[in-house]
């Protein structure tokens, strides 16, 4: 009895001497660590999905040096023709005032470029493109009328960027 336990102790002492690090179980720790690493790497990637569109504000605050030489800008006016109903995005029924809402299909927008009025933003942007090609010095102004949402504006800016029109400025007042 006594002999066996002594022998065991001896053996374990010998083991400690030969490979002291081997006694610690590293595998689970390394597993967890790698999982954490992968998790943080993945979360970092998701964020880069977000993008941005460049736009400009009118720089009218200071005295303009060449304001007399500036040609009249091309204005694209976004107007709400039919407001549509606010619905709950999950259920599709009328919005109750809780959480997010969306507009239903009855919502309609019109886009006015100069005297012409369009119902499709693509056509309006095509017209802006024509005008801009005639006189590239004319800047493009976006006039979002009351009732328009951020998404409506983004759609116009996105379409304009797609056809190569950049440097869009904003106009209009919040009042």
């Amino acid at each position, binding site marked *: 009895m006594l002999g066996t336990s002594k022998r065991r102790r001896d053996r374990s002492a010998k083991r400690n001497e030969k490979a002291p690090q081997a006694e610690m179980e590293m595998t689970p720790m390394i597993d967890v660590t790698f999982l954490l690493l992968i998790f943080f790497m993945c979360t*970092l990637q998701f964020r*880069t999905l*977000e993008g941005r*569109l460049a736009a400009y504000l009118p720089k009218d*605050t200071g005295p303009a040096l060449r304001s007399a030489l500036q040609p009249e800008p091309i204005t694209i006016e976004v107007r709400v023709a039919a407001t549509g109903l606010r619905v709950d995005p999950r259920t599709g029924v009328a919005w109750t005032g809780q959480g997010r809402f969306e507009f239903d299909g009855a919502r309609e927008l019109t886009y006015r470029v100069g005297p012409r009025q369009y119902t499709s933003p693509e056509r309006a942007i095509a017209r802006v493109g024509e005008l801009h090609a005639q006189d590239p010095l004319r800047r493009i102004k976006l006039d979002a009328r009351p009732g328009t949402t951020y998404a409506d504006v983004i759609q116009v800016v996105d379409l304009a960027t797609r056809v190569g029109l950049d440097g869009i400025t904003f106009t209009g007042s919040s009042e």
Partner: protein
Amino acid sequence: MQMSKHDPETDMEMNMTPMIDVVFLLIIFFMIITDLTQQELEQLVLPVAVEAVEDKPDKDERRPIVNIKQDGTIIVRREVIYTPEEDDYTRLKEYLVDMAQLMDKDTPEGLSVMVPDDPILIRADENTPFKMIQKIMELCGQKGIQIWKVELAASRPPDEGPGI
């Protein structure tokens, strides 16, 4: 003696310490990066834009980021600084003045004064009334701020992936 070479315990002779050190450093790095970028970006449903340019987190933290919720609530650095009920823009204005002072100044073509050369990032829910954003744009043009470059946040179409 010969047996001990094949003992699984002696296989651990490989030195794990440098590897674990590096992995921990990587974890700490990613944790810090994630924390910094999450701080200012609020969870919002952004409109989809195909042409949106990939937005890299701003390292200098010089770019003001303004989050606007659907009801018009403005959140900056995880703090609500404007509610439509109170309708008080002083805190937002203070924030923009502070940020504009930190920015590099330049004189753009057609102007004779120095104005900030860095953009502001506006992030709004897709159904936010645009007049809320116009109000912020108005503030940007005020004396002491004069930020004229705007970046509008949008999400990219899901099938596009993270891009190259």
